């Protein structure tokens, strides 16, 4: 049996460069705490893992159904504030508040759908954009209950040690991404939602004409995506031990879109790559306190948003499909006969022997 497993791995992972990279990457992530115990690196990686869940859930809602959601921070903020209020007022522990927060975000997703799903295209985007801002106004208007500008601080930590927190965030990330990846798999035999979401994105009217209740599936996408975004929000609140207005910020919603589109929309792994490249890059630039030229008082760390924006523009101008998808297209080629992925340097298909060129 072990031999068969090894054979499967050899055939389905080692033969395809994209999967091989993902596999090595995953293994490395598990061993990072053994290589370095430095608190700061783990801190950044935990945040990266949390934001991976957040960005992938955006891809799930917006990439796969084509309903561009501008207010993804709504789920994040609702879950963060729910978790914070529960642990502050009822004294609940993270293992209870995070799932409850995620469920609250799911309910919020359903609430958002009431107006949103009557609308299409840009109208839907704008209504979703309004949602977190409305909630933000309410939070700032009642500072006694919500902490106002300062938020709610002093939450119980996620776990006792940094390393335990790292593994919690990592496992949560892998499980969430795996579930969402399987759900949107259009080739799957037993989960139909993937292919239906693809159909809705490509042509909603045709999907309706074939008897698919598109409203129900869009609602389902918002609910599932909202749940995982809420999970990220709860983890974030308990990891930083504070839930503040930043969790509902307009920039956070846009960050999710930037990360995902940078890596490649409608691909799940694109969002993962986007966060793993862009988030640490921003942190690196923040640390890079070297003058731009000798003797100037402008530091590279002051230019980080400028550099970030230029990088995003350049990537999008030359790789409109996204960075990860672009790399993948360079590394892999689909066999014209049996539609199997092959390494791009192979002369013939590894399964059917058809000539690749």
């Amino acid at each position, binding site marked *: 049996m072990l031999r068969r497993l090894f054979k499967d791995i050899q055939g389905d992972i080692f033969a395809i460069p994209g999967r091989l990279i993902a596999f090595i990457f995953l293994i490395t992530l598990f061993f990072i705490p053994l290589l370095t115990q430095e608190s700061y690196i783990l801190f950044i990686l935990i945040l990266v893992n949390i934001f991976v869940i957040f960005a992938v859930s955006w891809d799930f809602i917006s990439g796969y159904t084509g309903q561009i959601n501008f207010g993804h921070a709504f789920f994040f903020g609702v879950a963060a504030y729910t978790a914070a209020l529960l642990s502050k007022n009822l004294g609940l522990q993270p293992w209870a508040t995070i799932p409850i927060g995620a469920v609250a975000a799911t309910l919020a997703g359903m609430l958002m759908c009431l107006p949103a799903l009557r609308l299409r295209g840009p*109208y839907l985007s*704008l209504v979703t*954009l309004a949602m977190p801002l409305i909630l933000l*106004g309410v939070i700032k*208007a009642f500072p006694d209950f919500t902490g106002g500008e300062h938020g709610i601080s002093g939450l119980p930590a996620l776990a006792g040690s940094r390393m335990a927190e790292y593994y919690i965030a990592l496992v949560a990330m892998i499980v969430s991404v795996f579930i969402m990846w399987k759900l949107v798999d259009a080739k799957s035999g037993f989960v139909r939602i993937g292919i239906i979401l693809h159909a809705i994105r490509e042509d909603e009217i045709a999907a309706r004409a074939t008897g698919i209740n598109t409203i129900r599936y869009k609602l389902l996408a918002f609910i599932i995506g909202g749940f995982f975004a809420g999970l990220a929000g709860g983890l974030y609140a308990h990891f930083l031990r504070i839930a503040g207005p930043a969790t509902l910020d307009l920039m956070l919603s846009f960050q999710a879109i930037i990360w995902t589109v940078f890596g490649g929309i409608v691909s799940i792994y694109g969002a993962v790559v986007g966060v793993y490249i862009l988030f640490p890059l921003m942190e690196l630039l923040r640390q890079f306190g070297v003058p731009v030229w000798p003797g100037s008082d402008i530091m590279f760390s*002051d230019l980080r948003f400028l550099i970030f*924006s230029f990088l995003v523009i350049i990537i999008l101008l030359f790789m409109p499909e996204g960075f990860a998808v672009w790399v993948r297209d360079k590394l892999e080629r689909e066999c014209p006969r049996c539609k199997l992925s092959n390494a791009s340097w192979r002369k013939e298909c590894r399964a059917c022997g058809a000539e690749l060129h």
Partner: protein
Amino acid sequence: MFQAFVIQALVTGGVYALLAVGFSLIFGVARMVNLAHTSFLMLAAYGMFYTTYRLGLDVFTAILISLVATVVIGLASYKLFIDRIREHEVTVMLITLALATIFQECMVLAFGAHFREAPTLIPGFIEVLGVKISYQHLLTIAVVAVVLVAIWLLLTRTKLGIAIRATAQDTEVANLMGINVSQILLIAMGIAAALAAIAGIVVAPLWVVYPYMWMNPLVMIMAIVVLGGLGSIKGSVIGAFIIGLVEAAVVFYLPGGAFLRGAIALLVMVILLVVRPEGLFGIVFEEERL
């Protein structure tokens, strides 16, 4: 109190109307959501601040320089970055957002993230029924009225205006009728940037000038444009005054209104959209109907 409320509503609504008309125009013609639109307002406001206080120029030269510089920046960013990826809707949004961030960071680097003020174009005030109303407020309302009438005349009475509206209705057929579509897009972008710049010049003394001043108006004008029906100029103007009225009413008559003004204005938009999903004056295209 009531007079001040009316003036505030008219000024806010008027500035939003200038911005929203430009935003709506560029959406209608090029089908692109330009998230950098309000940063042109920010650039023009900084232009006024820089030319008058730092360079010491007189007000009219300052207006001219700010206006022209903003339009040139708008056209250049369109030509360089947006033109070639116009078909990818989400990518356009991201690139314009990145552009807005670049403008914002350039202003932070050049002038620091401090609150600045721009010169009032006409100092002084008059008293109407015991309420002081500054000339700047009246000037803003007058400029808004003149510019809106001018843009309406341009769009309905000139050949250029007809070409712009034809492109907005159907780009391909407009192209077949001999309209140079890419030139029309450039002109529409220039007009939109100029409208935002005018709004920035007149409103700079009334608002605080700082690098992040583009965010709040951006959200509001997107709400307005959707409320009025995307691509409809008339709808944008009416939507702008509705939102301006709601904002001013919340600020004047609700406790804690300064925090809630954006929230309630957006709530009004959501409710109106639920009642009328295509906006007040939006057109439902046959293939888009569900």
